[in-house]
């Protein structure tokens, strides 16, 4: 029993990573109704930017804020330059675009900063949290920041005009235009926000998984899975999904025989898909009613 609780707690701790990434995924989904496969790479690139700034002597929080701003602007630029032209193209072509972006960002990061692992600092320290061996202060800090982000996003979407406009533009673009919303800019804004949130996720994750160009690969998949599990329209669902995925992953590794590190990912995904077969809209997603 103690092993079980320990693994659950450890799962929650690692789950914070996925929860944070899942928030960025849901953010972009709210804006553009797609999943952006390159989001992990963009987050990685932002994290590298912050690392570079710190190498140049800028203190942690200064680099953090600057990176957020740059990521926001960068996200908007990428959308305007690369994806606005594809707005009328078929969905699958857009997906190919995401894949192309992935290749470009990954390759450029590798060239600039090479593939050796780098240490990345955490503002929370890494001592055991409240004396527990399972959660470090950094992981607690991650959970805290994720929850804070969630609250901020909730307030943004539910209580601000801009948030309402973005929700409308994502839900029914034509109707949104008919109330005067510039849906094209809403998409750009969504990209900017998702990029910034991704940067936060990257900067929180890097101290744990170490900074290198391929660090976000697995994280992104788990982030997607978490977002889907939680229901793609629900930021709260994404966060809870993230924690659940962390727990699933840990329990699968502990209790299912023969599951080493490599099989954890497919098993976790298989579990998630089982949930989806039962609850197709995810745990917190709104059930979809198809109009015939």
């Amino acid at each position, binding site marked *: 029993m103690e092993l079980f609780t320990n693994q659950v707690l450890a799962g929650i701790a690692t789950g914070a990573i996925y929860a944070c990434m899942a928030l960025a995924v849901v953010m972009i989904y709210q804006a553009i*109704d797609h999943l952006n496969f390159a989001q992990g790479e963009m987050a990685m690139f932002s994290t590298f930017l912050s690392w570079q700034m710190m190498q140049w002597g800028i203190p942690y929080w200064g680099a953090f804020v600057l990176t957020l701003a740059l990521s926001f602007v960068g996200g908007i630029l990428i959308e305007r330059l690369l994806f606005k032209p594809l707005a009328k193209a078929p969905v699958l072509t857009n*997906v*190919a675009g995401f894949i192309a972006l992935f290749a470009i960002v990954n390759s*450029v990061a590798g060239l600039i900063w090479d593939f050796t692992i780098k240490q990345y600092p955490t503002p929370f320290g890494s001592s055991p949290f409240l004396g527990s061996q399972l959660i470090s202060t950094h992981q607690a800090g991650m959970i805290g920041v994720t929850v804070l982000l969630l609250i901020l996003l909730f307030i943004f979407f539910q209580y601000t005009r801009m948030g309402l406009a973005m929700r409308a533009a994502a839900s029914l673009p034509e109707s949104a235009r008919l109330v005067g919303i510039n849906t094209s800019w809403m998409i750009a804004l969504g990209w900017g926000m998702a990029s910034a949130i991704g940067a936060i996720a990257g900067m929180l994750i890097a101290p744990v998984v170490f900074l290198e160009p391929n660090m976000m690969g697995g994280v992104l998949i788990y982030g997607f899975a978490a977002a889907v599990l939680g229901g793609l*329209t629900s930021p709260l669902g994404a966060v809870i999904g993230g924690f659940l995925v962390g727990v699933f992953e840990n329990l699968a590794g502990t209790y299912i025989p023969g599951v080493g590190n490599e099989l954890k990912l497919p098993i976790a*995904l298989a579990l998630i*898909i089982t949930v989806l077969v039962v609850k197709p809209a995810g745990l917190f997603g709104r059930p979809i009613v198809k109009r015939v």
Partner: protein
Amino acid sequence: MSAVEDVVNEAPAVEAVPKRAMTLGYGTSLVVLALLILVPLGVKNFIIFQLTMLLIYGLAVLALNILTGGSGQFSLGQSAFYAVGAYTSAILMEHANMNYALTLPIAGIICFGFGFLFGQPALRLSGVYLALATFALATAMPQLLKLGFFEHWTGGVQGLVVTKPDAPFGLPMSQDMWLYYFTLAITIGIYIASVNLLRSRSGRAFMAIRDNEIAASAMGVDVALYKTLAFGVSAGITGVAGGLGAIAVQFVAPDGYTITLAISLFLGMVVGGVGWLPGSIIGSAFIIFVPNIAEGISKGLSGAVFGVLLFLVIFLVPHGARQVAIVAQQLIGKLKKN
């Protein structure tokens, strides 16, 4: 991929391709066929090998085209079926001493069954959810192949070496050349069969499901049957391609069948034109040759160059090679009038 909300006015996630447009005209087909038969006669063995791979990946992209362009189901998991086909052939050849040609239909049938089975749970998923499920399948496969449990058969991490066959009846051609024509014959056979499948009642059922699943079922199409059938057929063809690939490359190993392969096949489908069967070979050419070109341009930035080239293609022809073909057709039509 927008599975979450379905608005009456929204276009289907996979664009509908009119039946007529899914194939080439007779004239162009003959030209392409002539090229495919004659070109290998004058080139070196290594090029012949590449051409063989071109056909093999073309088959795999064709299979994906039937699944996605035909029945509207999105799959990032084709590498899993390819791997199963490859290993089936390899194991049968090396452990059971079976003739290479015989292994292919077996690989096809096994993969058909595998795909059909996978299609069952996949019935309740679509769009982004199906993408995740197939993705899970693709990532699981290399790991499954490495499992100690199967090692005696699969050769574990190192995989198996496959013996390349000689040309039969003592024909005076190299192994590569024989394998090329063998593959070509199979490819042509499968291509014709696929075209006929899509023109048949089943094909129409696929497309009805792709365009509007609810309407299709309201009209009496057995959606469950056809969706799983599409998966099965697609997996079967991919399995045959995998078997051929194993023979051509002369070995199988788990890390040769990763998610990268599945993503490449997907890109091949998009570049060729989703649902346009002849485009499969163009997509295949893209995924075989463009990465090499990218590396030639810049070793350090090969990924970035590939990405840029891919962007160029999708900016210029968002609907893939099919768009080029349609434009060409219109131009020829205009010239004929003058």
